[in-house]
């Protein structure tokens, strides 16, 4: 991801609307990508990304230039997504909330059974993906964020540490713990499938 020119950022911080429009153009894909990993729905992710830029416009005056603008935008996006998901969970509007990870996997298994031969590989991939995503929903916010930012978005550890404002060691330990949980989940699921 290319960083915006510092002069442009300064203009945006000082309230220049055109400069802020260039900020939107430069970072909208990055921000929407992170939102998509959290929201798991393209439409909601776009909606969330727009809200992130609204918030950023409102708060950009407090940007202190002690990190990259992208780091700051990531932080805003991550915090807003976590808050939105928490709110949705509380209101029980989140459609997958009522379906546990195991139920979801069973549902996927039925889909696999119904699928035609040749689509088995794709169905299995979907099944595993669904299992991983459902498991991640039960992670604490920092653990989930570490997995999304490192293993899916591919952001380096130092940057993640700055985005989440947690020590580098904590980033690594949280990531290791989260990966182990996910791996064990897949070991169990794949073991069950082999037994069938």
């Amino acid at each position: 991801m290319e960083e915006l020119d510092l002069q442009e950022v300064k203009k945006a911080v000082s309230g220049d609307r055109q400069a802020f429009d260039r900020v939107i153009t430069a970072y909208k894909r990055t921000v929407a990508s992170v939102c998509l990993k959290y929201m798991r729905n393209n439409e909601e992710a776009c909606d969330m990304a727009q809200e992130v830029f609204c918030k950023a416009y409102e708060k950009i005056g407090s940007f202190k230039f002690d990190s990259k603008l992208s780091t700051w935008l990531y932080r805003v996006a991550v915090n807003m997504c976590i808050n939105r998901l928490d709110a949705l969970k509380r209101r029980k509007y989140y459609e997958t909330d009522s379906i546990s990870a195991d139920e979801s996997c069973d549902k996927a298994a039925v889909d696999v059974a119904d699928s035609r031969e040749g689509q088995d590989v794709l169905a299995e991939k979907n099944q595993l993906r669904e299992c991983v995503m459902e498991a991640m929903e039960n992670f604490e916010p920092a653990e989930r964020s570490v997995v999304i930012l490192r293993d899916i978005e591919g952001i380096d550890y130092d940057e993640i540490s700055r985005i989440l404002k947690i020590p580098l060691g904590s980033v690594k330990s949280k990531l290791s713990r989260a990966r182990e949980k996910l791996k064990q989940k897949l070991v169990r699921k794949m073991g069950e499938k082999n037994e069938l």
Partner: protein
Amino acid sequence: MSCKKVNGLINSLIEGNISAAEEAEIKAHVKTCQKCGAEYKAALALKNVFSDMKEEPKLPADFNLKVWDRIGAASSPSLADRILGYIRKPVFIAPAGVLVAAVIFGLFVMNPGVVQDKKAELASAEPAVKTAEKQEITKIKKAVTYIAQKQSEDEKQIVSAEPVKEDIIKEESKDILKVNQFAAVNSAADEKIPQPLKGNNEKASAAPVIAAADKSIVVTPTPAEIEVKNNVINGVKGERLVIKYRLDNEGQVEIRIYDRTGRPVVHFYEKKPAGVYEFIWEGKDDSGSLLASGIYTVYIKTPLVEKKIKSAVIR
């Protein structure tokens, strides 16, 4: 290769930083170790899942416009907002706190006169009439005490010398004369004293009447504005709270008694002529039922005074 080492390499596999030689070692190990084999398969699956999840969002062409729509017609943040935002920074909070503390310290600790001035101001807010009235009452009380003292001394002399009482009255001391002069001068004030306080009116039982040498001058002390007797009462035993109050002129008297929850249990409103009266409470509410044990607040308001008194009811 040990299972522990293979497990470490499997974790590195998810991260993506593993060499081909190391992967070959893992593959060789998992052929003989079923547990590590399952872990290896799961790690590969997890890596694939993460890879699949790296999908790109499909953004609408008018994304920027939608953002600006949401921001609305709001212009760039105003200068006032920016100044406020700047002041709210933590760097400024501590100095601001110190400044406020310094101002308070300077005003009230280093210059206590300010506080005293305020107190004096508040005290002077009391109605001037009331202050004058109090001074008058104090003077009269002093005079009465002095006369009583002198009379008792004179009575002792009477017992010893057996003179005629009237003579003694004629030979009154200069001090008594002085008091009488004072009473004469203040006769206007005396006239203000309500009629029930004078003479043999029963209502004025608390006011001792002392006649000086000149019988036309009657120095009558006024009772305190409110007297409370027995504010711990046992209603069952018939004990009573007595509040004695005075009215200089005709006026409205309001007495309410509240329980600890603030609920009024007794109401008394009455317009009364000038005089001294007693309000008696036997620990009963308006309906005449005995109240539970506890602390009650008696609120009394007359044209002269407004006061709250605590009373305890025990059973």
